[in-house]
């Protein structure tokens, strides 16, 4: 069996599109968790981003407005989560689940009018000269805006967390909220910012699905990607660099599954569909077994903070 260059290129291109939504959503959650907040509502925020992005792009005809709407919708859904867990110190696990259930329901309700409508696709950027290069051109220089944005955001988050004062404060809040509070930082305000950022990025990830991956609206179209993004954050040991690698590895495994199916190997389609979930479980087990020093979760992850006065 020979695989020609164009087939390989097609596979690599699909891997990029499969990885980007995961990377975006997981990057947001990474920042949220670094601030000590566990938001299990990623799936809900993603699916809201997907429906909002689709709806706005379709009604305005402008996919970039759709991208903005997706981010806003994700952040808007994150707001009640922030209010409950940060201001009312509600249980983060339960509130995150509520957010997912609400997002799935609300997106279904909003999206009902859009089922079956052809969407607006986010254009691939064309850089004259560079994107015309053989093989690597379309791969590296012919992607859409969100692909570049996801990589740029990964670098920015890494710089922010480990080379900026604000990032240091955010990590301090996540690792020891009592000390951060004693030093005069507003734990609640830092966490609010992190939660809204996480929501916006989850929304972007969802928007990528309905604007670029498959430009249409299907109910529950995130299909568990929000949960996989949560697993990727654990897998990355809360480090942006490893998150990029993890997201792309994950995208690759998923796409290779479909590729194998395309070769006509006698494997049930359901088994290949189950592959991402099974891979997630295996990855979680592997990473949890061999967690090294400095790879631990933020110490205050999931813990509520009530300032004592």
């Amino acid at each position, binding site marked *: 069996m020979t695989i020609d260059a164009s087939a390989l290129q097609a596979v690599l291109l699909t891997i990029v599109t499969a990885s980007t939504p995961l990377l975006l959503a997981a990057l947001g959650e990474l920042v949220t968790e670094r601030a000590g907040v566990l938001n*299990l509502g990623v799936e*809900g925020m993603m699916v809201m981003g997907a429906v909002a992005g689709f709806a706005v792009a379709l009604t305005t005809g402008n996919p970039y407005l759709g991208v903005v709407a997706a981010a806003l919708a994700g952040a808007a859904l994150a707001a*009640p989560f922030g209010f*409950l867990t940060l*201001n*009312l*110190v*509600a*249980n983060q*696990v*339960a*509130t995150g*689940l*509520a*957010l997912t*259930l*609400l*997002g*799935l*329901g*609300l997106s*279904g*309700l909003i999206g*009902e009018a859009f089922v079956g409508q052809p969407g607006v696709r986010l254009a691939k950027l064309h850089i004259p000269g560079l994107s015309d290069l053989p093989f690597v051109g379309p791969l590296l220089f012919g992607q859409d805006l969100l692909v570049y944005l996801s990589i740029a955001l990964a670098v920015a988050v890494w710089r922010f967390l480990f080379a900026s004062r604000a990032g240091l404060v955010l990590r301090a809040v996540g690792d020891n909220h009592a000390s951060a*509070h004693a030093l*005069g*930082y*507003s734990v609640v305000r830092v966490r609010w910012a992190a939660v809204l950022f996480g929501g916006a990025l989850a929304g972007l990830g969802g928007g990528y699905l309905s604007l670029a991956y498959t430009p249409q609206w299907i109910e529950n179209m995130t*299909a*568990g990607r929000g*949960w996989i993004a*949560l*697993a990727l954050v*654990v897998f990355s040991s809360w480090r942006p660099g490893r998150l990029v690698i993890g997201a792309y590895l994950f995208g690759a495994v998923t796409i290779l599954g479909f590729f194998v199916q395309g070769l006509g190997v006698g494997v*049930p389609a*359901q*088994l290949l*569909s*189950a592959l991402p*979930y*099974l891979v*997630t*479980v295996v990855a*979680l*087990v592997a990473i*949890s*077994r061999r*967690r090294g020093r400095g790879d631990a979760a933020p110490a205050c992850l999931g813990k509520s903070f*009530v*300032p004592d*006065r």
Partner: protein
Amino acid sequence: MRIELEKRAERSKTLAWASPVIAVLATMVTGGLIFAALGKPPLAALWVFFVEPFASLWSLEELVVKATPLILIGVGLSVAYRANVWNIGAEGQLTAGALLGSTVPILFNAWNTPATLLAMLVLGAIGGMLWALIPAVLKIKAGANEILVSLMLVYVAQLLLDWLVRGPWRDPHGYNFPKSVAFENWQTMPTIGEGRLNLGIFIAVLIAVVLAVVMRRTIKGYEVRVMGEAPRAGRFAGFSADRMVLFSFLLSGGLAGLAGVIEVASTVGQLQPNISPGYGFTAIIVAFLGRLDPVGVVIAALMLAASYLGGEAAQIALGISDKAARVFQGVLLFWVLACDTLILYRPRLVRGPTAEAAR
């Protein structure tokens, strides 16, 4: 303007009772606003949604039928959550239970004895337990996050079901529909009266009562509460965190599996790709609305069952999308969690600068 929380000297007993009621009322107000936003008459819609399910004998029967799986799963989850063990994959355990329980009618179709149904129920519970055992063991042996693993396995279980009913277990005389053979009457739950009411509700209530006694009156119940609230103290008392994870998953998974097999052996009557409208997830809301207490769960399950019925009725009567029911369920859980804060804290609206800025 912001909110400051002041810790109460002791948890408010009045509010512990009142908070679920306040949450339900707040959900109704929110629901009314959503209906108004959808351009529907809010009061009429609320009536259809929340009152009519309780208003006729037929719908009361249907209410109980829908509450049955919610009670079974909800009581199991309430114990697990009390122990601070987060099984959110009950939907998958429900599916696994339905699958294993259905091996009897599908593979041993001719086996007609009084023990047939009992064997199905036992296998259903075992199926749920086995599926729940995976996240429990991975948590204990490898430290893998049980929330994520149990949730991933929901998708796997549903795909397994999908493959079986489209492949090896498809009814050969079923005109190629993705369905198994229809279960015979000795393979289904005995019904009570003319309608769909069946023995399942008695099993569910009985289990809820047993668990209420266990949680209130036995050492095991004490162990669950201690390990949930003060795991360090629990370890000094000789309780094992690992054993608690295992116990919580086996109990909640087994009950979800039982709910699954009861569902396919009563209202569904065969295996098909969709056997549950998300009972395993709705039961999470049931557990919290019931204040993680088995008796509270029974009441909460009736409430949530009503939301399914109300959703169907509102669709027929007023053309409101059946998705509205799911939105309500999510909103309800939000309000429940918000109101629960009131039990431990007294919120105050504060004007002016924050405490930090004032220092």
